C-alpha cells in the first residue's frame, strides 16, 4: 500500500534558548500511508511537525515535498503543497462559527463574506462524505472537545490537504470517538491521502499505522514497519527501558469514609441538569474510578465537588464537614486537591513561570509565604524538587509554563496536587497527554498516595487508566451512576454496555454481579 516517497524531512535542527527541540531529525513519509510518530513528552514531535507545516522555522535542515524544497516558516506554502495539521492544542477561534473558522485567513482580506452559504454547503457535503457530523453554523465554543476535533480535521480536508498531520488526536477522545477516528484515518488513506499520526497510545499505533518512528531527544532513533514490531519493543525504544504494563499494588483495605457524596445534583453551563442525584463514598486507602463517555456529567460533577459550580441539591462531606456552598478557595484550604480536566482552563496559568504555577493555591501560606511576603527560596526549592521527582522537562523553573510540552505541563499539575498531601484527591483525567513511561510513573505515585491512606476519586474516559489503579469503578450515564464494577479487564464488555446506558444482560457465570444503584 505504501507508495513512493512523498516527503522528506532532512536533518532538522531547532533550539529554544538552551533547549534543543530538534537535533538533526530526519523522517521520510510515503504516499498513501499512515505514519506514526512516537516519543516521550518533550521528545520534539510537536516542534518537528510545526516546522513541517511552516508554523515554526528550523535553524537548520530542509523539507522536501514531492521533489520540491519547502520555503521555511510559511504556513501558506505548506497549505499550497497540501500539508495541513491538527494541532495538539486546537487552533479554533471559540466565538466564531465553524464555517467562519474555515474561511479565516483564506483569500483576499478585502473580500466580502458573501459566499458563506456556499462554504456551509461544501462543509456539509464533506462532513457527509466522511461521516463527521460537523454543523457549519455551530459556534465553536459550544462544541465538546471531540466535536472540535472533528471540526479541525474537516477544516484541513476543506482546505484540500492531502498530507494530514494529527498531533495526539486521541488524547481527548472517548474510546468510541477514538474508534471512529481511526476508521476515518483508514477512509482517508483509501481516498488517496497520507497521514502522520502522533500518539502515546501504543495499541492505537499498532492498530492503525503502516510504519512507525520513535523520537528521542529531538532525533529519530528507530523506524520500522508496524507489522514488524510490538508494543513492548516500541515502549523500550521510547523510554530506553522496559515499561511495566501491569502495576503491582497492595490488596484493597477498607479504611473509614473520607468523602461522602449524597444525592448530588447540579446544572451545566446552559442551566440544564447535568448531574441528577449521585451518591457514593470514597474511603481511606481507596481509589474509586468513575467511567463514562465524556459529556455524561463528569465535568459538572468535578466542578461541583471543587466548588467551581454550585450544586442544586445534595451534599458533599469531607471528613464529615459539608463542602457544598463553600468557595473554591475554602475547599482548597480543606484537605482537598484537584487535578482538573482541562489544564489550560483550570490547572495552570500559561504565561506564569513554573514556580508561580506550583504555588497557585498555597502562595499565601507557609512555607511559601511569611509575614505577607513570598519566600522565593522555598518556592524555588519546592519547584525544583517536583520537577526532578516527576522528570518534568523544562529549560529552567522560571520559564513560562506554556513553553513546556503538553505532557510536561500535565506532569507538573499532577505533581503539584500530589505534593499537597490532601486527605482527598479529585483527579479528572490523570494521564491526558502523558507518555507511557511517565504514565507508569504517575500512576505509581497515585498508588503510593493510596497506600499512604488517601482517598482518591479518579474520573476518566480511559478505561485502561481505571483498570490499572482503581479498586472499584462506578459507571456514570446521563448524570446518574448506573452501576458499579470491579476493575476486571475480562468484564470490559459489561462496562462498555453500562457506559452506553444499557443493562448488561449476558453475564458470564461465576462473576460477581453488577451492583446497580
Amino acid at each position, binding site marked *: 500500500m505504501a507508495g513512493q516517497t512523498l516527503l522528506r524531512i532532512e536533518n532538522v535542527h531547532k533550539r529554544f534558548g538552551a533547549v534543543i527541540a530538534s537535533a538533526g531529525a530526519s523522517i521520510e513519509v510515503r504516499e498513501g500511508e499512515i505514519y506514526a510518530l512516537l516519543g516521550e513528552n518533550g521528545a520534539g514531535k510537536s516542534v518537528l511537525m*510545526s516546522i513541517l507545516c*511552516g*508554523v*515554526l522555522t528550523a535553524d537548520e535542515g530542509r523539507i522536501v515535498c514531492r521533489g520540491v524544497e519547502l520555503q521555511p516558516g*510559511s*504556513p*501558506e506554502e505548506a*497549505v499550497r503543497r497540501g500539508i495541513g495539521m491538527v*494541532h495538539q492544542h486546537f*487552533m*479554533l*477561534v*471559540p*466565538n*466564531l462559527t465553524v464555517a*467562519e*473558522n474555515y*474561511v*479565516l*485567513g*483564506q*483569500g*483576499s*482580506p*478585502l*473580500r*466580502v*463574506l*458573501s459566499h458563506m452559504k456556499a462554504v456551509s454547503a461544501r462543509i456539509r457535503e464533506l462532513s457527509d462524505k466522511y461521516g463527521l457530523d460537523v454543523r457549519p453554523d455551530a459556534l465553536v465554543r459550544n462544541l465538546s472537545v471531540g466535536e472540535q476535533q472533528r471540526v479541525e480535521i474537516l477544516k484541513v480536508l476543506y482546505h484540500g490537504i492531502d498530507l494530514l498531520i494529527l498531533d495526539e488526536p486521541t488524547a481527548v477522545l472517548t474510546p468510541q470517538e477514538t474508534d471512529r477516528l481511526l476508521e476515518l484515518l483508514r477512509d482517508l488513506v483509501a481516498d488517496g491521502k497520507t497521514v502522520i499520526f502522533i500518539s502515546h497510545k501504543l495499541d492505537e499505533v499498532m492498530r492503525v499505522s503502516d510504519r512507525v518512528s520513535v523520537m528521542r531527544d529531538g532525533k529519530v532513533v528507530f523506524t520500522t514497519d508496524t507489522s514488524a514490531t510490538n508494543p513492548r519493543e516500541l515502549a523500550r525504544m521510547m523510554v530506553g527501558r522496559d515499561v511495566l504494563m501491569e502495576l503491582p499494588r497492595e490488596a484493597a483495605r477498607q479504611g473509614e469514609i473520607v468523602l461522602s457524596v449524597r444525592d448530588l445534583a447540579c446544572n451545566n453551563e446552559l442551566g440544564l441538569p447535568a448531574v441528577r442525584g449521585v451518591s457514593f463514598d470514597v474511603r481511606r486507602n481507596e481509589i474509586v474510578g468513575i467511567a463514562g463517555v465524556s459529556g455524561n456529567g463528569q465535568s459538572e460533577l468535578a466542578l461541583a465537588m471543587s466548588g467551581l459550580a454550585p450544586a442544586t441539591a445534595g451534599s458533599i462531606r469531607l471528613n464529615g464537614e459539608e463542602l457544598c456552598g463553600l468557595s473554591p478557595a475554602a475547599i482548597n484550604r480543606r484537605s482537598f486537591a484537584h487535578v482538573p480536566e482541562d489544564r489550560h482552563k483550570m490547572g495552570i496559568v500559561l504565561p506564569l513561570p513554573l514556580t508561580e504555577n506550583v504555588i497557585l493555591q498555597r502562595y499565601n501560606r507557609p512555607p511559601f509565604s511569611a509575614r505577607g511576603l513570598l519566600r522565593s527560596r522555598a518556592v524555588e526549592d519546592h519547584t525544583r524538587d517536583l520537577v526532578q521527582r516527576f522528570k518534568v522537562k523544562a529549560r529552567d523553573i522560571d520559564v513560562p509554563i506554556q513553553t513546556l510540552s503538553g505532557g510536561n505541563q500535565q506532569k507538573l499539575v499532577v505533581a503539584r496536587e500530589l505534593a499537597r498531601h490532601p486527605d482527598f484527591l479529585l483527579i479528572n483525567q490523570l494521564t491526558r497527554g502523558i507518555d507511557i513511561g511517565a504514565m507508569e510513573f504517575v500512576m505509581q505515585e497515585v498508588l503510593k498516595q493510596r497506600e499512604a491512606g488517601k482517598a482518591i476519586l479518579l474520573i476518566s474516559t480511559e478505561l485502561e487508566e481505571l483498570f490499572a489503579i482503581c479498586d472499584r469503578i462506578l459507571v456514570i450515564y446521563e448524570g446518574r451512576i448506573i452501576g458499579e464494577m470491579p476493575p476486571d479487564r475480562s468484564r470490559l464488555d459489561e462496562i462498555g454496555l453500562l457506559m452506553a446506558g444499557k443493562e448488561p444482560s449476558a453475564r458470564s457465570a461465576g462473576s460477581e454481579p453488577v451492583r446497580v444503584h
Partner: protein
Amino acid sequence: MEHILTLGFLATTIGATWRLATPIIFASIGEVVSERAGVLNIGLEGIMLIGAFVGFWTMYETGHLPLAFLAAVLSGVAAGLVFALFAITIKANQIIVGAAINLLGLGLTSFLFRTYLVHTGQGVRIAPAIDIPLLSGIPYFGAPLFKQNLLVYSTLLLPPIVGFLLYRTSFGLTLRAVGEHPKAVDVAGRSVALYRYGAVLIGSGLAGLGGGYLTLAHANQFVEGMTSGRGFIALAVVVFARWSPAGSFFVSLLFGMFYALQLQLQAEPSIHIPYQALQAMPYLATIVALLLVRNRMDAPATLGVPYRKA
C-alpha cells in the same frame, strides 16, 4: 419647572443629545475596532485632543473645512501609529503607552496652542448646519433634529459601515479572530501585528475625527484640555455596549443625553442645583454604567495582551 415638561424642551434635548454624543460615537466605535483586535487603547483622550488641536490649527491657517477635518483624522492616525509602534511592535504595556499618549496629547497641544495660537483669540468658521427639507419642518422636533451639521448625520452611517466591516468581510473576521485567538490567525498564515496595526489606526483616525468635531463643528475655538474626559467616556461606552458598533452608538447617545440635560438644566432659572453638580452628571453616569456591567464575558479574550510569535 413646567418648561421642562414641554415638547419643545424634549425636542431640544434630543437634538442636543445627538450633537453632543457625536464625538463620543466616533471615538467609541473606533475603539470597538481596536479592542476587537485585542488592543486596548486608553490613549483616546489624548488622540482626540490632538485631533481637536490640529483640526483647529489647519482651519485657522487655511480656512478650508474639509482639509481641516482631514488633518484631524490624519493627526489621530499619526498618534495611533506612535501608540501601535510601542504597544504592538515593541510589545510594551498597552495601559502605560496609552497613558503616555494622553499626557503627550495634553502637553503637546497646550504647548503649541500657547506658543502659536493663544493670542489669536478668534474663532474659526465651523461646519454649517444642513437643513433637511420636509423633515426639518416637523413641528417641535424638526428644527432641533434635522438642522445639524454633516458629521452629526454621518454618525447614522458609521455603525452599519463598521458593522459590515467587522462581520461581513474577511478583514473583519480575521480582525475579530486576532482579538480572540491570535495564534490561530498566525497559524492560518496572516500577520497578527499587521491586523492590530490596521485596527489601531482605524480606531485612532476616528478618535481624531471625534476630536476635530469639537473645534470644527461644536465650539469654534480650541481650549486646553477641551476633550474633558470624552475619550475616557468612550472607553466606558465600549464596555457598556459589549464591543458592538451599533451598541456603542446607542450608549453614546445615552451619555450625550447627560451632557445635554446638564446644559439644558443649567440654563433653566427655576432649577436650583449648583451647576457643578450638573456638570458632574456625565461622569457620574459613567461610573454607574461601569458598575452595572459586571459580566465581562464578552470582552475579546486577548484584550490588552501583546502577541509573541513562537
